């Protein structure tokens, strides 16, 4: 291929890549004269060069595109259709270019189809010669708007209301990218790679020299070596910088992708890119491209709701996807944010259960936040249905795998009904890595510095002692239990582990590491020094060993393996799941208050209100007019039946628009609680600061720094259920006396009306001691439902006390608990409980009671 053609190909390829995001922006801001000019110039240059070099097929196509673009420059309105045609033309040009690169000649074929459409569009422009004096914001078409067009005013408004920096951001990149590039030299990637390898070798040689001098002590080489060292470091830095590319290169294709997605999905989505100038190593850049594309696609497909859905939720019709990049220390942080519907913990729980990733008992123990991490597990995809866009079986697990492969981490920063934010942290470069050299057994290994938090010396002379729980080593560090991994054990190294030598009592060190959200310790025999390693990938033969991410040559010339923090984190997860599980449960339970997910909302008053999320079945919205009043009760048609809607005292009913409603389900009967606005979902330990006697309220608590009223759902539930269950309607009115023991007023308030609504006579007490007082007084019950975790006498002890009791010994006992570990269930059974029900599992409780009634035939 001759040089001229080669240059042309590179240059044109770059120009087209530049053009794509410009075009998509152009569609949104058609009256940005500067941008229009820039695009026109680009097309023009492509056309010109093609003609010059004798590429007629290309020239013809570019010419037709240019003609149309020229009309836009002259003020013709831009339509969605025309941008689509121009984009297809660019695709065709790319296709021809790739053939050209392979064969050195334009492929056979005709572009008449596209040329014709371009020409048609150009001819169809009635305003072609209607040139406004300025490219001002008040440009008039002089004719009514056609289908698919919007007025300039509207566009302008949309643009102005769009979040983000002002118009500056538009003009700036256009200027920067399109300005004549002076003082730059184009060099091939291969050349750059070679330079990098050479510098890596230089670093290596320097390290070897430093090592020699270190060993020899005094040496006349010392000061020249110092200089060599500095120069090498500078050179290394320089080459690294040359390899850096703005991250914008990785997301160049995203605006077009989002545009096409929004057309295909019928949603309107705005993509905002922030921090595109952030630079990172081109190798990292290549590797991050696909995961980013995938995540943006996910956000657009699954995250952003349809315009109608958004309007109903009170959100702006246009959805926003935002990419933000920036540098934080030696890492690049990229955030992908959307303002869509957020992840549904309930859906994920269901999916996790359905795909056997976890059992119900395990899920019960996990907070919503922990549940979200399931989306990163292999074999998990939340898309309810497979769409054309995503959900092709490739999910976030692949994204995570790709990111972790380059030593990065990905986490869900936050998710709520207001949207989702993912946060990716990746190293600036892969080629050179600062690492800690440690010894395990008789061998040295390198641990990447980026995941090392601190070093803790343990042993006889240290304040930190190694402890073992059932042979699993743990370290007590600042009042927290740190799970430990023994590196030698993990690598199955042969160590002299006979009791006489007490290997770990010598002077072992714990390397405290953090990976993702996990913190753990790695037990090593000793720690040497830190060294910058030139990382090389492991040989194909050894790539299946997950424990190593690569290898490198040390200053002394030996080969060292680099431990992969991902593999350590995975190993700790395995340990965690087996031996340490019970331990953690214990620790959790000792913790003062466990976090509760709360739905924060406003209703009737400006003060925030909250209810535990676990009580809510769904969040719904109903057209205000669809809520009917019947016999003084508000009802709405819901899933083929009438659902009562309860309003807060003093709450103004909406005249029109959408009424947000929290749906609670009792014994398969839904009831709606109308609210004014859903504010947030937060997860915090719930401590009721002030209790109140006000009906409908449990009290007030501080949630996220705001005084928040905690709503007594049972109060409203009783109202709602009462609305439907008029006297006589209670199908199963039975004469069964139930004793409910629970220290939490909240649960007593919630459960008592429920039980009553189901036909039970309920006596509720706040402690086992109170229950025993009732026993002394000779009260009789048919069933006892008791909480397990209570201050003073707990549920288990209470059950033990009743064993063999003349009066109460035969009453069936049902345990209520928020935990459901198999060990606990066994304990309750041994203590004499006939059944164990989750605290929030209301249906389970009702079924269990029903069953007890049948079994012990205590029904009247």
């Amino acid at each position, binding site marked *: 291929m001759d040089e001229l053609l080669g240059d042309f190909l590179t240059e044109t390829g770059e120009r087209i890549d530049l053009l794509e995001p410009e075009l998509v922006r152009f569609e949104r801001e058609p009256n940005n004269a500067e941008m229009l000019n820039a695009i026109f110039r680009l097309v023009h240059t492509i056309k010109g060069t093609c003609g010059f070099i004798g590429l007629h097929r290309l020239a013809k196509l570019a010419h037709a595109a240019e003609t149309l673009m020229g009309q836009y420059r002259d003020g013709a309105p831009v339509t969605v259709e025309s941008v689509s045609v121009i984009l297809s033309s660019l695709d065709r040009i790319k296709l021809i270019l790739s053939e050209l690169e392979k064969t050195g000649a334009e492929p056979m074929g005709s572009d008449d189809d596209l040329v014709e459409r371009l020409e048609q569009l150009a001819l169809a422009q009635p305003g072609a010669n209607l040139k406004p004096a300025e490219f001002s914001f008040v440009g008039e078409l002089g004719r009514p708007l056609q289908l698919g067009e919007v007025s300039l005013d509207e566009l302008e408004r949309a643009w102005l209301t769009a979040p983000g920096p002002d118009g500056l951001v538009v003009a700036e990149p256009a200027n920067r990218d399109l300005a004549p590039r002076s003082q730059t030299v184009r060099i091939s990637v291969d050349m750059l790679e070679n330079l990098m390898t050479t510098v890596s070798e230089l670093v290596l040689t320097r390290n070897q020299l430093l090592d020699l001098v270190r060993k020899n002590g005094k040496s006349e080489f010392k000061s020249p070596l110092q200089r060599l060292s500095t120069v090498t470091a500078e050179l290394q830095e320089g080459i690294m910088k040359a390899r850096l590319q703005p991250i914008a290169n990785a997301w160049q294709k995203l605006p077009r992708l989002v545009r096409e997605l929004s057309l295909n999905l019928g949603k309107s989505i705005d993509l905002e890119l922030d921090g595109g100038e952030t630079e990172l190593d081109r190798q990292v850049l290549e590797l991050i491209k696909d995961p980013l594309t995938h995540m943006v696609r996910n956000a657009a497909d699954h995250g952003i709701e349809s315009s109608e859905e958004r309007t109903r939720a009170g959100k702006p019709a246009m959805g926003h996807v935002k990419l933000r990049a920036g540098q934080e220390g030696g890492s690049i942080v990229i955030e992908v944010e959307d303002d869509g519907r957020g992840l549904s913990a309930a859906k994920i729980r269901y999916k996790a259960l359905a795909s056997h990733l976890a059992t119900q008992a395990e899920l019960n123990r996990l907070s919503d936040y922990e549940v979200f991490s399931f989306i990163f597990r292999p074999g998990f995809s939340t898309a309810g249905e497979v769409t054309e866009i995503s959900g092709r079986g490739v999910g976030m697990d692949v994204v995570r795998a790709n990111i972790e492969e380059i030593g990065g981490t990905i986490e869900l920063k936050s998710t709520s009904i207001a949207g989702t934010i993912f946060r990716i942290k990746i190293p600036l470069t892969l080629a050179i890595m600062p690492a800690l050299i440690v010894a395990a057994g008789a061998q040295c290994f390198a641990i990447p510095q980026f995941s090392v938090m601190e070093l803790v010396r343990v042993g006889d002379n240290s304040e930190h002692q190694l402890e073992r729980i059932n042979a699993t080593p743990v370290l007590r560090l600042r009042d927290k239990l740190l799970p430990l991994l023994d590196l030698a054990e993990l690598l*199955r190294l042969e160590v002299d582990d006979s009791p006489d030598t007490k290997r770990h009592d010598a002077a072992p060190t714990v390397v405290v590491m953090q990976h993702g959200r996990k913190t753990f310790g790695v037990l090593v025999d000793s720690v040497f020094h830190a060294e910058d390693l030139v990382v090389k990938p492991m040989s194909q033969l*050894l790539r299946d*060993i997950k424990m190593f991410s690569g*290898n490198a040559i040390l200053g002394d010339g030996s080969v060292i393996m680099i431990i992969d923090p991902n593999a350590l984190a995975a190993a700790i997860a395995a340990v965690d799941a087996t031996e340490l599980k019970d331990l953690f449960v214990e620790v959790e339970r000792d913790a003062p208050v466990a976090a509760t997910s709360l739905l924060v909302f406003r209703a009737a008053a400006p003060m925030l209100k909250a209810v535990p999320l676990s009580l809510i079945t769904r969040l719904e919205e109903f057209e205000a007019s669809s809520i009917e009043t019947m016999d003084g009760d508000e009802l709405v048609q819901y899933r083929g039946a009438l659902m009562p809607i309860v309003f807060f005292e003093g709450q103004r009913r909406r005249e029109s628009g959408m009424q947000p409603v929290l749906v609670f389900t009792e014994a398969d009967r839904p009831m709606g609680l109308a609210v004014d606005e859903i504010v947030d979902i937060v997860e915090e330990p719930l401590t009721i600061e002030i209790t109140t006697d006000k009906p409908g309220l449990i009290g007030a608590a501080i949630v996220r720094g705001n005084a928040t009223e905690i709503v007594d759902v049972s109060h409203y539930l009783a109202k709602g259920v009462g609305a439907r269950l008029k006297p006589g309607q209670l199908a199963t009115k039975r004469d069964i006396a139930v004793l409910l023991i629970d220290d939490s007023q909240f649960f007593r308030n919630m459960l008592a009306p429920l039980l009553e609504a189901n036909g039970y006579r309920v006596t509720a007490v706040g402690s086992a001691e109170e229950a025993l007082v009732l026993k002394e007084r000779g009260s009789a019950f048919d069933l006892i439902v008791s909480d397990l975790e209570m201050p003073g006498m707990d549920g288990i002890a209470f059950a033990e006390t009743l064993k063999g009791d003349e009066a109460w010994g035969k009453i069936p006992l049902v345990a209520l608990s928020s935990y459901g570990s198999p060990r606990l269930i066994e304990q309750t059974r041994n203590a004499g409980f006939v059944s164990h029900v989750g605290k929030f599992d209301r249906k389970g409780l009702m079924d269990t009671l029903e069953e007890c009634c049948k079994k012990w035939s205590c029904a009247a």
Partner: protein
Amino acid sequence: MTEHCAPSEEQDFVTVVTAGQVFGLDLDRVRDVFVPRGLSPVPLAPNEVAGLLNLRGRIVTAVDLRRRLGLGPRHDSAPAVAVGIEERGELYGLVVDGVGEVLRLPRSRCEANPVNLDERWAEICRGVYQLDEGLMVIVDVDKVLAFDRTAS
């Protein structure tokens, strides 16, 4: 196997000795011969991998032919030599007991593996030459490096 030993032409082999057996390696595939020094064993690696070493700034994966053939370990005192092989841009060292001369042999004289050859051997050998000094087994370099990568 016969297509590898197509008649006509001659082929060059590097002869190596391991556990008393003479093996022939394709000369084209052999990059250099070196003494493996400073081996770092690789934990969790397949048994065939003797370790990693630094050869003039490049990391070499040493594969022990003895272990590959399921033979007993080499005596520590016995000298070892490695044959450098480049494969898909990576450098491997096939560790043997000793390296002999280069032989040019007509392909036609190559005979198929005896049917009763040990399975491990048959997997990596693609023929036998009857030489005056004894039998020389031709080792397929690609197959020597293709073994089960899970730790054993």
